[in-house]
């Protein structure tokens, strides 16, 4: 049986991969002005998305963790957590290969 913590991680790492692949941050941080914003801002300098991607992944992971019923968790193999992690690592490496080509 897969625990809720494992579901959080499994859904979280996949949500993180989706978040940076299609640039879906929960919020943005503008370091030059020191401001957080849910919407893009003009004249605030460049934005950092990394915090927002992690926040998005945590939010989606937490929702999945609390929403999925216990009987459904019984059908999720516990080994999916590391398989999901391998998938996310490959996605990250494929996405960032542009720097090495």
């Amino acid at each position, binding site marked *: 049986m897969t625990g809720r913590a494992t579901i959080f*991680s499994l859904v979280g790492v996949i949500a*993180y991969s989706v978040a940076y692949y299609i640039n879906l941050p929960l919020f943005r941080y503008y370091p030059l002005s020191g401001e957080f914003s849910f919407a893009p801002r003009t004249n605030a300098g*460049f934005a*950092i998305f990394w915090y927002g991607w992690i926040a998005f992944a945590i939010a989606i992971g937490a929702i999945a963790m609390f929403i999925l019923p216990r009987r459904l968790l019984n059908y999720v193999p*516990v080994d999916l957590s590391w398989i999901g*992690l391998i998938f996310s690592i490959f996605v990250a490496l494929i996405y960032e290969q542009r720097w090495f080509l």
Partner: protein
Amino acid sequence: MIGVLLVVHDVVATALLIAISWQAATVWLSQNTHKVLLPNFVRGGVSLSDAVAILILTVVCLGGVLYPTYRISVHPYLELHNLRVANGAFEIKEHFAALAILMVPAYRQAWGTSAAELVLNRRALTTLMCGMIWWNFLAGHLMNYTAGRFI
């Protein structure tokens, strides 16, 4: 202040690297070899996994505090001088740090019980996280070297 944080980040990252490397090595030993070679207090058990989990959270949080400084002072220099490998290595480091912090609950759950069906899960998660942490450690030092050498 940033210099002090960078040193603390490095020291905690080194502790994390040692702890998870030890755990990744011991998790592959058979239970019998495990008991013969390693005394209880250093065996890859619950207490070591607690320490690793806390160290991961601490290192990533410290990295998160330092990250805007990197983006403001180092990242533009890398782009301007076309240091693409260093840039790419750090981009991967960002993703690995995020994945590591998201995997902490599953990692804790895998180490929280001695159930036999979780052995593969424990081995795979610990080894993968160890690999990501090694990458992050080396990429962080590459970045320190690059920043110190060229900026």
